[in-house]
């Protein structure tokens, strides 16, 4: 068992040592968001995926690549919005740069968006049909199946 574990660990260390990261994005300061701005976004007429995250949140880091992939796949038909809560501008910008998040992100230090939309903790992902109707709220790390299914739901309502 020890030999097996040592072999596996050695393989993992070798592979991970070879990992290269892409060039960091230049991220401007995140604009603040309040109730009026949120209402305006939700009434835009597009289906919306709104993800509440924070740079200190480990599960948020875990789901960031999935959201980025979803934006690449559906970004032309669905509006993706990120809301960084209870965080600092510097950490938030570093998080966006590290994960290459290309959709619009807003800064909400007090967490008012989450308080208004409902939900506990981070991450939370909200799915809005065109017109602003909340179709589904997912607490915690979202998986590919749930994300794809709910995007299909808001695209066809």
């Amino acid at each position, binding site marked *: 068992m020890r030999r097996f574990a040592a072999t596996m660990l050695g393989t993992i260390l070798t592979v991970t040592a070879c990992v290269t990261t892409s060039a960091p994005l230049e991220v401007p300061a995140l604009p603040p968001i309040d109730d009026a701005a949120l209402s305006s976004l939700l009434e835009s007429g597009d289906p919306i995926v709104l993800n509440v995250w924070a740079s200190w949140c480990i599960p948020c880091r875990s789901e960031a690549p999935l959201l980025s992939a979803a934006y690449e796949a559906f970004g032309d038909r669905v509006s993706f919005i990120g809301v960084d809560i209870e965080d600092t501008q510097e950490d938030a910008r570093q998080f966006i740069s590290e994960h290459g998040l290309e959709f619009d992100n807003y800064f909400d230090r007090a967490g008012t968006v989450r308080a208004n939309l409902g939900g506990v903790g981070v991450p939370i992902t909200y799915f809005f049909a065109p017109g602003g109707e909340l179709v589904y709220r997912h607490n915690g790390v979202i998986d*590919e199946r749930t*994300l*794809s299914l709910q995007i299909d739901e808001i695209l066809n309502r």
Partner: protein
Amino acid sequence: MEFTLLWAALLAVGALWMMLRLERRLGLLPDDRSDWFDTLLGAAVSGLVAGRIAAMLLTGTNPLTHPADIILIRGGVDTGFASIGALVFLVWATRRSLPAALDLVSPAVLAGLAGWHGGCVFRGTCLGTRSEFPWAFAEPGSALTRHPTEIYSAFLFVAAAFGALFLLRRITRPGVVAAGALATAGTIRLVTEPIRPSLGSGPIWWYTTGILAGIVLTAAAFLRQTPNRRPET
């Protein structure tokens, strides 16, 4: 805190355990090894870790700088590398008699996969692409009816598990049942993938590779001049 993934995993482990128990009752599992359940659990954990690390690497997250992310299984597990990780563990654990050992655990592995897919009822991820079939379901509050894709998969894996059990009692050439199970599992995933919601086309290359490998290994096991797994009865 959300435990739906854990319930699905427990259902998978329960199905695996029940099939091993059935195999033992039918006299298909040798009494000299009492740790088949532990071996399969070890393979499952190895597969999860390998698949999770592969998924992290493929999405640009370094497991060395973010080790805590490895336990976030919901963040994604790469199917192909998970299968390889599980197989590597089984190769290590069974060593000398790998084809025969894989034959013996094939029904249980297929049953475990059935349990995992059936666990969608806890996770709320049973539904797939839209469908007008009479048995199609809709999300709560939605008028869009959909294929219960994961339920289809679960039933197909249950049928495959009992098929493997049937073959295990009749075919004694080592490796045939396991190779057939590999091809069947790949086929089930491949045929259900188009009705499964995903961001792309899914890991269809892994499934195709599994099917081809299963077919080649089945033919090789039949053609190879090796002694039978157990004496003919």
